[in-house]
């Protein structure tokens, strides 16, 4: 038995169901002091279980220790460096959690009427105004519950806008470095994706764009800075070209972290964009949510925003100041059952107010500084396919390591052995063996230097002892997982025998 196998067996944690023993309790309720009611009588037989649910039975400390052990086995942003950055998970200040945990927010039912939810509506209205100020957009809807949902809402707005002008048009242009959600969103909205190649600097090929646009171009979807961490320095020309044929310019706001407080997309000429509150504005997410992907538009497109819009009536003519405005005849309709993920909005609001305009600008400046520091320190050891200063992230390639049989995936796994989470790998698709590194603003020089030393060590190991890297991780609670089975035969539910 290898050392790794022994170690894995030592830390394997049974499921909470396997830890259960009949009759164990955390709390015992006092005897019932009201008349007992038969649920079948109240709800009807079809609504009542015939067999009791197989809940696990444990004492409170057993439950606490089980979940603490699981948390200790996991790598997370509270435990170590996470160079996935705002792309996935930047560090989220705890004060936002405190604010979002206030009972006035957590106990608010989504169906509470406007009269009794004025505080929440005021917060949402205020957040939308802040996002408008940060982005230079005129109006913002907080309704889309995720980034891709914001993209889809944006593309439906593009379609509604062109339809009102007599022709919905048929094509939307996306760069080859785009997030995969972009072509998916525009396809869902009934458009055909037209890919545009990046030039040798990693930017949109402007001459190619000139050739591509015509009267069927509904829009271009562009991420700025793009997924290579490169600022689209010819963005004004791009805007002019697309506007020249009557198309709209959409910004994927996934990388807004690099621009906040420095550049406003609205000032550049973008017509609409989405924000990722769960990335840029600090809200933990992962495993599918919850997210928040508000959409901002210029006044020309405001009529198409998803309804209801949260409006303010300072005169309180209906007795209340903030209300859901459904009188939007040109709206694309609702994009979420209720009104987005409210507690994510609370965290973003708290984040924005805590930092203020100067603080938000410093976030972006520090994110850029940290990324450039890492890029400069690492470019001697890993291939840097697109040179020059980066924005908040940069993309290395493990192509030199590949010569020794070590791939980006192996580097990513080896990082775990040094207490560092993997960066994004194999994206963007235009870089082979890509390692996309985004340190974010919150990391100290010490933690950046630690990461640099680990990356250099792995580069050395790749030459001197590639098997160690290929076999990684070896110091974690479990070794390398079978990603094929995880993808094909994923089974995470427990069933009672």
């Amino acid at each position: 038995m290898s050392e790794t196998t022994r170690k894995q067996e030592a830390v394997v944690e049974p499921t909470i169901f396997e830890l259960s023993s009949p009759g164990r309790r955390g709390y015992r309720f006092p005897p019932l002091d009201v008349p007992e009611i038969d649920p079948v009588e109240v709800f009807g037989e079809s609504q009542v279980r015939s067999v009791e649910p197989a809940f696990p039975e444990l004492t409170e400390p057993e439950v606490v220790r089980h979940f603490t052990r699981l948390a200790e086995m996991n790598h997370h942003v509270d435990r170590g460096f996470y160079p996935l950055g705002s792309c996935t998970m930047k560090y989220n200040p705890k004060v936002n959690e405190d604010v979002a945990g206030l009972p006035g927010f957590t106990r608010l039912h989504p169906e509470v009427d406007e009269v009794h939810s004025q505080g929440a509506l005021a917060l949402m209205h205020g957040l939308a105004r802040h996002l408008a100020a940060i982005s230079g957009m005129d109006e913002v809807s907080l309704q889309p519950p995720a980034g891709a949902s914001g993209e889809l809402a944006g593309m439906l707005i593009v379609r509604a806008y062109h339809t009102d002008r007599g022709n919905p048009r048929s094509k939307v242009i996306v760069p080859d470095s785009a997030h995969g959600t972009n072509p998916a969103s525009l396809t869902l909205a009934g458009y055909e994706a037209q890919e545009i190649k990046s030039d040798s600097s990693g930017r949109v090929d402007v001459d190619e764009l000139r050739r591509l646009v015509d009267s069927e171009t509904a829009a271009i979807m562009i991420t700025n800075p793009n997924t290579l961490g490169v600022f689209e320095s010819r963005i004004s020309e791009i805007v002019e070209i697309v506007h020249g044929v009557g198309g709209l310019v959409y910004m994927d706001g996934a990388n807004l972290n690099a621009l906040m407080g420095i550049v406003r997309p609205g000032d550049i000429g973008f017509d609409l964009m989405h924000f990722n509150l769960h990335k840029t504005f600090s809200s933990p997410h992962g495993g599918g949510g919850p997210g928040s992907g508000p959409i901002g538009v210029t006044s020309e497109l405001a009529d198409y925003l998803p309804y209801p819009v949260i409006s303010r009536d300072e005169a309180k003519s209906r007795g209340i100041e903030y209300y859901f405005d459904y009188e939007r005849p040109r709206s694309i309709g609702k994009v979420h059952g209720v009104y987005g993920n409210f507690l994510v909005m609370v965290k973003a609001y708290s984040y924005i107010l805590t930092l203020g305009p100067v603080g938000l600008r410093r976030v972006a400046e520090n994110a850029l500084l940290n990324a450039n520091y890492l890029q400069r320190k690492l470019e001697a050891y890993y291939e840097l396919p697109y040179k020059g200063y980066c924005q908040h992230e940069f993309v290395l390639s493990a192509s030199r390591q590949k010569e020794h049989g070590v791939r980006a995936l192996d580097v990513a796994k080896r990082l775990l052995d040094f207490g560092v989470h993997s960066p994004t790998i194999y994206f963007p698709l235009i870089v082979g063996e890509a390692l996309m590194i985004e340190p974010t603003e919150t990391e100290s020089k010490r933690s950046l230097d630690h990461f640099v030393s680990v990356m250099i060590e792995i580069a050395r190991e790749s030459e001197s002892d590639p098997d160690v890297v290929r076999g990684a991780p070896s110091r974690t609670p479990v070794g390398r997982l079978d990603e094929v089975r995880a993808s094909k035969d994923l089974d995470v539910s427990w069933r009672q025998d």
Partner: protein
Amino acid sequence: MSKRDLRFTESHEWLKVEGTEALIGLTDYAQGELGDIVFVELPSAGTHVSAGDVLTTVESVKSVSEVYAPVAGDVVEANAALEDSPDLINSDPYGEGWMVRVKLEDVSSVDQLMTADDYEERTKG
């Protein structure tokens, strides 16, 4: 089978002529780049494809990629074994991992594709 009998494309498909039909698959180089393949979307028999059309989609642990038709033809059958074992493309790309059998529209169109030597040269380094 010998790689000498195969023809290749820039986008890393291989093609083997058998009479008026041809087998199409992904090259060893391509499967190595994609990594472990977890899913293959196969076309149904009778589908007509022109050269350069998307023939199938393969999903690996890294990414989703499209497989293009090297030449024009009609799909005769797809390799049903890939539904349960897409990893055959990794383990035996030129054999058990074949993807689609097509009836060629024009057998001579195959001559325009790369030979094994050309392809090897192209993927070197």
